[in-house]
């Protein structure tokens, strides 16, 4: 199962008004590390579907949201809760390292 794509248009309803913690994976086609980390995020989402939702936002197609959150490096994986950023993770990392970064949302 691969993550749902959110857009500039859907960001408000899909992310900011989401009813549980949700992580947005800011990515782009040309970004090798993004492609590497994507299946790992899918796995984490699958294993923790009751705790954390994970969605993707293509920064090329949705520059407004990427700029609003000051993205300057991808993959950038931001966790939102009640419309606020509560965690920022930047750069592709192995699964155990990402799980450690996200521990408070996976427990």
């Amino acid at each position, binding site marked *: 199962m691969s993550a749902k794509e959110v857009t500039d248009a859907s960001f408000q309803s899909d992310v900011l008004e989401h009813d549980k913690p949700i992580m947005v994976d800011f990515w*782009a086609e*040309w*970004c*090798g*590390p993004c492609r*590497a*980390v994507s299946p*790992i995020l899918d796995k984490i989402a699958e294993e923790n579907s009751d705790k954390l939702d994970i969605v993707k936002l293509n*920064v*090329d197609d949705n520059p407004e949201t*990427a700029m609003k959150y*000051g*993205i*300057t*490096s*991808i993959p*950038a994986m931001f966790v939102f809760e009640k419309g606020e950023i509560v965690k920022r993770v*930047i*750069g*592709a*990392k*192995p*699964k*155990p390292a990402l799980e450690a970064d996200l521990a408070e949302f996976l427990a």
Partner: protein
Amino acid sequence: MRQVIIIGSGPAGYTAAIYAARANLAPLLIASSVEFGGELMKTTEVENFPGFPEGIMGPDLMMKMQEQAERFGTEIVYDDVTELELTGDVKRVTLGDGSVHEALTVIYATGSAYRKLGLADETRLSGYGVSWCATCDGAFFKQKKVAVIGGGDSALEEATFLTRFADKVYLVHRRDSLRASAAMQDRAKADPKIEFLWNNEVAHVYGDEKVTGIGLVGTENGAETTLDVSGMFVAIGSDPRTHLIHGQLDLTPEGTIAVDGRSSRTNLPGVFAAGDVIDPTYKQAVTAAGSGTVAALDAEHYLAALADAAPAQPVTASV
């Protein structure tokens, strides 16, 4: 038990895999979970790999090497090595998922990792304007000013690549001449967007939530300058990735793994090393590939000698 496990998925690892697979050794290659393909995954056009007169994109080249290795029976695992036991006759490789793999030989080809400047603010602002990968992050600096730190091929490649997006690229180098190849130098010097700042080192990275500027100090006159940039790309070289083998394999004074002459033989029987992790000097895709070949052939000879030695006893006993 395997005949050979290869650790690393850059040109050295894949070339070793191609040779080992063609020698029917059915190698297992540990490619890493997020950094598979190695350094070339972060480059754009590779113009100096023989056989590609028009140039080839780094990631495409690595994909071709991977396909070639798989074609002859290499098994690839996308995970990270967490532990290595190399001293015994049987080598044990533990992966991130907890699985343990055993082999008679190991080819260690983990390459090198980007060097940092070593400033606290560099770490703090990493991902917020401080970057080690222009091809990954360059597009976020459209019409902005950025600085590239370094004077080698990778620094000039990053600077040239960044001119696609940035209005202005400062190239900050602590010496007054470049180590980069003549072709890269000519291209960068001809680019009106690139300005060279010689004999300068980075002393500060400014910014609360993202980079707003960097502070330079002249290496000869101590003069301080501030550059208003929103991005800093660090390309000051790399260090061999040896953390997994400390205490097991001997290192050279340069920090690379020590090998016997032009071979890939380390201080431990059955353990071979190849690529940038043994090379403090050349560090090219094609030299790494050549080094991977050497390692595969050395491993093959070692295994052949083991096989010759092993059945000798029962044969003599039965005669």
